[in-house]
C-alpha cells in the first residue's frame, strides 16, 4: 500500500514536470517557427533592386528604399530626443531626488507611461504635435510621438545603469573636491555608459517596429523620394508592411514577406547589438 502511494507520487511528479517542459517547448516552437517562416518566405524577395529602389504600382513592384530610410530616420529622431531626456531624468532620480512623495509620483508616472497602449501615444501625438503644434504629418511629429513612448524605457534603463555604479566612486570624487555635477559627468556617467547605451539601442529597436502611433500621426502610404527635412512626410517599414498586407490588393506574397524580413532584420540586429554591449560590459566588470 505504502509502496503504491510512493510510486504514484513519483509518477505524478514525472507527469507534472513533463507538462512544465511541454509548456516551455510550446513557448519556444512558435518563436522559431515565425523566424524560420519569415526567413524562408522573405529571402526570395530580397534583391539589390528591392533594397535600393522606390516602390512602384502601389507597392506591388519596385523596392522599399524610402521605407527603409524613413525607418532609420525615425529611429534616429526618436533617440535624439528620448536619450538626453532619459539620461538627465535618470541622473535626477538617482543623484538629486529625495525619497519623498514627489519622487514616488515620478516613478509611478514612468511605470504607467510604459503601460500606455501605443495607439494612445498616437492620439497624443496627433493632438499635440500634428495639430496643436502644427508640425503636420511629418518626420518630426512622428519622432516626437515615438520619443514620448520611448521615454519610459530610456529613463528606466538610465536609472538602473546609474544606480549600479558603486557609491565609493562618487565619494572618492567628492572627496577630491569635485562638485556633484562634475562627479556625475566625469565619474558616474562613464561607468554607466554601457547600460545607458544598451537601453538606447533597445528603445531604437522598438521604435523601428512601432506601427500604431505612426499610423495615427500619419506615415505616408507611398512616396517616390526620400524625406529632405524633418518637416517632410515619410514612409516607414512597419506601416509599409501593413499597407501591402492589408490594404493593397494583388501584392505578391513574396513582396510582403520580404518587407517583413527586412523589418525583422532591422529590429533584431539592434536587439543583438544591445545584447553584445551588455555582455561585453558584464565581462569587463567581472575581470
Amino acid at each position, binding site marked *: 500500500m505504502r509502496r503504491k502511494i510512493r510510486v504514484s507520487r513519483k509518477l505524478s511528479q514525472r507527469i507534472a514536470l513533463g507538462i512544465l517542459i511541454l*509548456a516551455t517547448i510550446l513557448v519556444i516552437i512558435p518563436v522559431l517557427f515565425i523566424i524560420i517562416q519569415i526567413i524562408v518566405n522573405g529571402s526570395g524577395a530580397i534583391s539589390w533592386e528591392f533594397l535600393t529602389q522606390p516602390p512602384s504600382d502601389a507597392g506591388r513592384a519596385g523596392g522599399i528604399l524610402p521605407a527603409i530610410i524613413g525607418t532609420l530616420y525615425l529611429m534616429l529622431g526618436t533617440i535624439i530626443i528620448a536619450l538626453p531626456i532619459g539620461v538627465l531624468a535618470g541622473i535626477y532620480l538617482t543623484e*538629486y531626488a529625495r525619497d519623498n512623495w514627489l519622487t514616488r509620483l515620478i516613478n509611478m508616472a514612468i511605470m504607467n507611461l510604459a503601460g500606455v497602449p501605443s495607439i494612445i501615444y498616437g492620439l497624443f501625438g496627433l493632438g499635440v504635435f500634428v495639430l496643436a503644434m502644427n508640425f503636420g504629418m511629418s518626420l518630426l511629429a512622428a519622432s516626437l510621438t515615438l520619443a514620448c513612448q520611448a521615454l519610459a524605457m530610456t529613463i528606466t534603463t538610465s536609472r538602473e545603469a546609474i544606480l549600479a555604479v558603486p557609491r565609493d566612486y562618487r565619494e572618492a570624487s567628492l572627496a577630491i573636491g569635485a562638485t556633484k555635477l562634475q562627479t556625475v559627468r566625469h565619474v558616474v556617467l562613464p561607468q554607466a555608459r554601457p547600460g545607458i547605451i544598451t537601453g538606447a539601442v533597445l528603445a531604437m529597436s522598438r521604435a523601428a517596429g512601432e506601427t500604431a502611433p505612426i499610423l495615427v500621426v500619419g506615415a505616408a502610404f507611398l512616396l517616390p523620394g526620400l524625406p529632405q527635412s524633418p518637416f517632410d512626410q515619410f514612409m516607414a517599414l512597419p506601416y509599409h508592411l*501593413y499597407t501591402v*498586407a492589408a490594404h493593397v490588393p494583388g501584392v505578391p506574397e513574396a513582396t510582403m514577406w520580404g518587407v517583413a524580413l527586412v523589418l525583422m532584420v532591422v529590429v533584431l540586429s539592434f536587439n543583438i547589438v544591445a545584447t553584445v554591449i551588455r555582455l561585453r560590459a558584464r565581462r569587463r566588470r567581472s575581470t
Partner: protein
Amino acid sequence: MEHSTSPTAAQVLGKNLRRRWRVREKFIEGWILLAGFLAIVVLLGIVILLFKEGVPVFLHTPPWEFFFGTKWYPVSEPPTFGIAPFYVATFWVTLVSTAIAVPVGVACAAYLSEVAPPKIRETVKPIIELLAGVPSIVMGFIGLMLLSPLIQSMFNLPTGLTGLTAGIMLSLMSLPIIVSVSEDALRAVPNEYREASYALGATKWETIKHVCIPSALSGITAAIMLGVGRAIGETMTVLMVAGGALAVPVSPTEPMMPMTAAIASGIGNAVQGGLQYQALFAIGLTLFIMTFTVNVIADRVLERQKRKFAR
C-alpha cells in the same frame, strides 16, 4: 605695491571663473530637474488631451448611450456612437489570450526557475526575449498569412479573421512578460522554503505546487495583470486579424473589432474636432483608464511581493 595687487587680480579672476562655473552648474541642474519631471508632464498631457478631445462627445451622445449602445455608425445622418461592440471584442480577445498565455507562461516560468539546468535556462531565455522583440505588425502579418487559414479550416468558418485568431497571436505577445515577471517572482522565494519542504519528504513537484507557486502568487498575479494590460492595449495585431466586424460579438470565433482597432481604423477619416474624432478620443480615454487601472494594480501587487521577502 604691484606685488600685492597681482595676486588679488588672479583671485578675482578665479572667483569670477568659479562663479561662472557655478552659474553653469545651476543651469545644467535646472535641466536635470526639468527632465525628471517630464514623465509626469507627458502622462498628465495624455490625460488632459484625452479628456479635452474626448469628453465633448457626451454632449451629443449621453454616456449611457455611448457605453451601452450597440450601434456605431459615425458617418450616417444622424450619427450614432455606441461602443459596446468594441469593448466586448476587447473582452473576447483578451480572454482568449489570457486563457492560453497564463497557464503556458506560468508553467514555463516554473520550469525555468525550478527545474531547468542553467544551460537550458540560458538558451531558452534569449529565445523568449526574441519573442518580445518581434514587432506587433509582424505578429499581425503572421496571423494573417499563417494562422487565419488554419483557424478557418479547423473551425469551418466563413473567415479566418476572428477574435480567436487575434487572441492566439496576442497570447504569444503577452507570454514574454508573463514568463519573465513570474520567473522573477519564483526566484525571489527564499531557498529555505524549498529546503524545508524537501526535508518533510515532499517531491520537487509537490514543492513547486504547494510551496513555490503559493509563495510567489502575488508576483504571478502581477505578471498576469501585465499580460492582460498588454492584450488590451495591442493594436496592430488585432487590427489586422480580428476581422473588423461592427456587430457585438457573441463568440470568439466571430470577426470583431476591439477598441484599439476601432481607434486605429477610424482616426484616418475623422475630421479634427468633429463628432467622430471626439468619439474616438473618448474610446481612447476609456482604454487608457482600463490599462491604467490594470497597471496600477499590478504595480501595487509587485510592491507587496517585494516587501514580503525583503529583509
